[in-house]
């Protein structure tokens, strides 16, 4: 640390001073014009609170939202990887119809704003799916039964399960288009010789994909996939619009109840930042170790 400080040129110090005074000025302006009673002391209670009646610590709205966001991100990315891999393979298929279908899906998603896509998927797809599969009454049965603890660990409040699932489906469908493109790039980056070699030793097209192309391609696409996962966490904020009880939605609720506008949003921003930045650090280290 000290060594690094010594390496700084006087120009670096100047730049640092200018930046600091710039932020100081903005802060001073905000304090002057913003009429706001800061009530930071209320925020910790909305993350973790001691329940005076039940006499135990429990996760309050903000932490509940954060946990929900993490759950949704994990499930949605698993689903997105599965769908995206299928999509990526379809994009490289010999059959023109399959290729065109995959292309249509992709272009549809890439050229429509995420918010619009989310609404369309929600009302026309995930809603119908949930009604058709009768997921709601099934989830309610679990919520009423005694062995709900395991389910709640994985999915949170089972009464809100349908909304969680539609959030996961919508998000996964949306992200699968981008995962698909990553997979396609991975497949196409495998030298032609590899595929020809596979065919020449008598492998079928399926075996060629399964044993030669995909293992190499998947290895190559890990870094962009990790990146896409972080994007997915950030994108998950959009599904608050379809009332999935994740971090952003809970923050809106908290603001509506307490008027802690700035404290609540700054805290939420910090949550997202810590998770996404932490993950990107982790992925970078894993990558460095590999090479």
């Amino acid at each position, binding site marked *: 640390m000290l060594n690094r400080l010594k390496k700084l040129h006087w120009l670096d110090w100047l730049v640092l001073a200018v930046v600091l005074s710039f932020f100081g000025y903005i802060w001073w302006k905000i304090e002057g014009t913003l009429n706001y009673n800061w009530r930071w002391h209320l925020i910790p209670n909305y993350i973790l609170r001691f329940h005076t009646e039940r006499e135990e610590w429990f996760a309050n709205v903000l932490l509940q939202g954060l946990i929900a966001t993490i759950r949704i991100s994990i499930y949605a990315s698993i689903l997105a990887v599965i769908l995206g891999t299928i999509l990526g393979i379809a994009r490289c298929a010999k059959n023109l119809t399959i290729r065109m279908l995959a292309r249509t899906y992709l272009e549809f998603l890439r050229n429509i704003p995420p918010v619009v896509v989310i609404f369309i998927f929600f009302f026309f797809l995930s809603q119908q799916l949930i009604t058709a599969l009768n997921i709601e009454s099934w989830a309610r049965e679990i919520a009423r039964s005694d062995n709900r603890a395991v389910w709640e660990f994985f999915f949170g409040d089972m009464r809100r399960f349908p909304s969680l699932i539609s959030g996961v489906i919508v998000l996964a469908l949306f992200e699968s288009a981008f995962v698909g493109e990553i997979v396609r790039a991975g497949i196409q980056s495998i030298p032609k010789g590899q595929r020809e070699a596979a065919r020449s030793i008598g492998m079928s097209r399926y075996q060629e994909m399964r044993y030669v192309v995909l293992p190499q391609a998947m290895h190559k696409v890990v870094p962009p996939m990790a990146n896409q996962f972080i994007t997915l966490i950030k994108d998950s904020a959009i599904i608050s619009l379809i*009332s999935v009880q994740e971090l952003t939605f809970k923050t809106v609720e908290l603001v509506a109840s*307490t008027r802690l506008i700035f404290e609540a949003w700054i805290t939420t921003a910090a949550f997202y930042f810590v998770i996404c930045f932490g993950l990107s650090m982790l992925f970078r280290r894993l990558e460095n170790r590999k090479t």
Partner: protein
Amino acid sequence: MNITRRFLGAALGATLAATAALPAFAQSTAQDIASASVIEAIKERGVIKIGLSLFKPWSMRDLNGELIGFELDVGRQLAEDMGVEVEFVPTSWDGIIPALVSGNFDTIISGMTVTPQRNLTVNFTIPYAYSGMTILANTAMTEGFTLEDYNSPDVTFAARRGATPATVIADMFPEAQLLLFDEDGAATQEVLNGNAHATMASEPTPSSEARRYPDVLNVPFNQAFQAGGEGFAVRKGDPDALAYFNSWITAKTNTGWLKARHDYWFRGNDWADQVPE
């Protein structure tokens, strides 16, 4: 002779069958309507699902993150009287009517004012609450303003998008500018920051905000504007649900229960320690 008698018999039989079938047909239609009602679905499920959007003090989260408020009292009592469980589905205000129409919940109990426009999409019960709105103004910016002075292009209002205050403001002050936000807190903040002259909301929110920022905010007029009625919203084509909710509201109005709950949340301050001011 023989043929004619047989023919007569057949004709008689046909007529008899037809007269018997007609009321049966009418009856089955009535049964269809009754069994398709959301009331039947609620009884069968054992759960009533109520959509709401958080709006202080109609509904809000307390210190423990639990939902409390006037709507919650109404919803819980309604469920108890129906003998079913209650599930509240917090939904963003923008999408609450589409969510009802697409079947996410059985009814909206969320301080929704009955307006002809909304009535084109959903049906409303008779009002279960009446709330008037008051103006919450930035004291320094609106010094000496009469009510007419607010109706000028130089005046800016802030309000929550899609909510009744936004409509009322556009109605009462057509000349004024209107800034729209996704929730109430942001609208109030704009008034606090001096970016808007005033906002409108139903009491007691304006008074409590004015108490928190006595130097900046005030409630300039002691009257409530456009006291509208709030009703439950249900999907169209369901006469049974409307009938049931209407008689429930009538019964609860007659016993004074609704007024007592309304006064507790809207006039009193007894619940203030459950939510941080």
